[in-house]
């Protein structure tokens, strides 16, 4: 218990430190100027790091929210009697979907939805769906039948069983799926900058195109830090929601 609390505290501190670092545009400017003294424009001019991170998070959060709103009910539904007929279809689709390269999903969305932020969000939501659905089904199906039997025997209704027995027991597995989904989304959102979605990919692309190494570094460092902080935060959440042994 104590260990869990210190872990949470460390991760919270890291998140706060990251947020502060991102807000100090002057630090970035100073550091990049020192590293690239020959460049006239060492900092990405179109947006501050804080703006880029905000844009990036916005895309990721919106698409992850959509993923959860669709993925969790879908995963639960195919484990209920009403949706069990679709379980195999959903499982096979999810397995198949996970073999799709993220870039290909982005790419296939373009002709259908065009360029910009919203197609990127649709693509990210769709791609993020696979680990969420997969882990929701796996987590719920891993709940032992004897536990469900006991719950039913005690007179619990099926909704009560879902929320007080199945979800808590499956929480860690489901949360692991969400974590995978979000981390993939952060990465794919970086690539999506090429389709005009904005976010931390933009300085990397512009930097590569205009041969400005400082912009590349700016975007890459911020994106890498964002992903790592998000991953450790979600890892803590995953640990926190696990049923205590």
């Amino acid at each position, binding site marked *: 218990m104590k260990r869990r609390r210190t872990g949470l505290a460390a991760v919270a501190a890291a998140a706060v430190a990251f947020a502060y670092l991102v807000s100090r545009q002057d630090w970035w400017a100073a550091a990049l100027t020192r590293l690239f003294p020959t460049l006239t424009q060492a900092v990405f001019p179109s947006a501050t790091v804080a703006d880029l991170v905000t844009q990036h998070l916005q895309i990721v959060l919106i698409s992850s929210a959509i993923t959860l709103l669709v993925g969790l009910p879908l995963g639960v539904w195919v484990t209920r009697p009403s949706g069990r007929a679709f379980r*195999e279809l959903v499982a096979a689709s999810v397995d*198949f979907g996970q073999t799709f390269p993220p870039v290909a999903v982005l790419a*296939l969305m373009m002709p259908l939805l065009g360029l910009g932020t919203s197609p990127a969000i649709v693509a990210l939501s769709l791609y993020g769906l696979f680990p969420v659905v997969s882990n929701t089904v796996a987590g719920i199906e891993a709940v032992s039948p004897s536990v469900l039997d006991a719950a039913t025997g005690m007179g619990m209704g099926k909704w009560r069983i879902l929320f007080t027995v199945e979800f808590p027991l499956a929480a860690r597995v489901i949360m692991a799926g969400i974590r995978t989904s979000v981390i993939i989304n952060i990465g794919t959102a970086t690539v999506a900058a090429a389709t005009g979605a904005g976010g931390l990919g933009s300085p990397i692309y512009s930097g590569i195109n205009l041969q400005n190494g400082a912009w590349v570094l700016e*975007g890459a460092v911020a994106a890498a830090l964002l992903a790592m902080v998000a991953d450790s935060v979600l890892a803590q959440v995953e640990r926190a929601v696990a049923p205590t042994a």
Partner: protein
Amino acid sequence: MTPPAAENAQVAQSPERGIDRVAAFGAAVAVVACLLLPLTVFRANRIVAGSPHTALSAGPAGWILLAVCVAALAVAALARPSVRGRVLPLSAAALTVALAWALGRAAVTLRAGQPVISRVSIGAGAWLVAAGCTVLWFASRSYDGAASFRRAAAGLAAAGFAGAALIGGLGQLSIVTEYGDRTAEFWAAVGTHLTLAGGSLALAVLIGVPLGVLSLRVRWLRTTTLGVVGLIQTVPSLALLGLLVFPLAALGLPGIGPLPGVIALTLYALLPIVRNTYVGLSGVDPAIVDAGRGMGMSGSQLLLRVEAPLALPLVIEGVRSAAVLVIGIAAVVAFVGVGTLGVLVFEGWGVQADDLILLGAVPMVVMAVVADAGLRALARAATSPGIR
């Protein structure tokens, strides 16, 4: 996801009673897509905005397509379960052929009298009809005793599709035109993509498997290795490529080109390989290891004769995850100047040439799916019948 056996048996039987909800869902998707979504998109040239055309505007072939969709829905909903198992695969085959012909006819009709540079590309409706058709096919697999019908239907679908390609005007579609314009570039990209992904994967196996084996024996190596490769895994691929530029430049090496590409892909491929090697080996029952040692096996004999065969399926499973991952990320490597399929996609994004995007994305998907299926089969083949 592995379904629990008991429940699975129930699912397999459910289509026997009343309406087959899975097949009906697939057919309904196809019907709706036919009626509401564009089967094709017509554009005056390859990059201008297009005008959508539903199936029904493709003339008789479009109406036939709709009729087949409706018929499939009727089969899913109304046919006697005993008959359904045989008719479903045939419906799926008919739908495949009807879709190919409708696309071909639409392309020919829409381009008639238009300049050569006009394009007819595949619309959202066609993709959804194809998806619905796949669902029908999937649903038909839960019926016993119709395997021969499924084989026949698959043959029929292939023949019909070939017919549509040869004489039905399927070749008039824009993606074929695009391919024709860029054949050499396309195959070069496919080659580069495969070489880069394959080479990095091979490198990752050569490094990752020994690392996984050593991790089993050396504790600090395990925590460090799994920690580091786990951390790398979270870093966005584009960011990692960006970050690699600087250490490479410091070493006097090119930060752009195949080298950072191979390094990045290898690093990403390491995690599943190292982790699965370690998990596979550490999962071997200690009693088995004790028995082996007690009978006088040396460390290497134990590894080669007992631990490796038991862990191999899991190791191959790790290679499979890594392969799928690497094929996807190889696309991103196009940004640092390697001519993978990503080049086609990103160039397509740059000029909004949808056909070019597809030309890059579709083979990528095919590669990933084939690698996935191939390595799954290999893992199965490498599993001793005693532990299957």
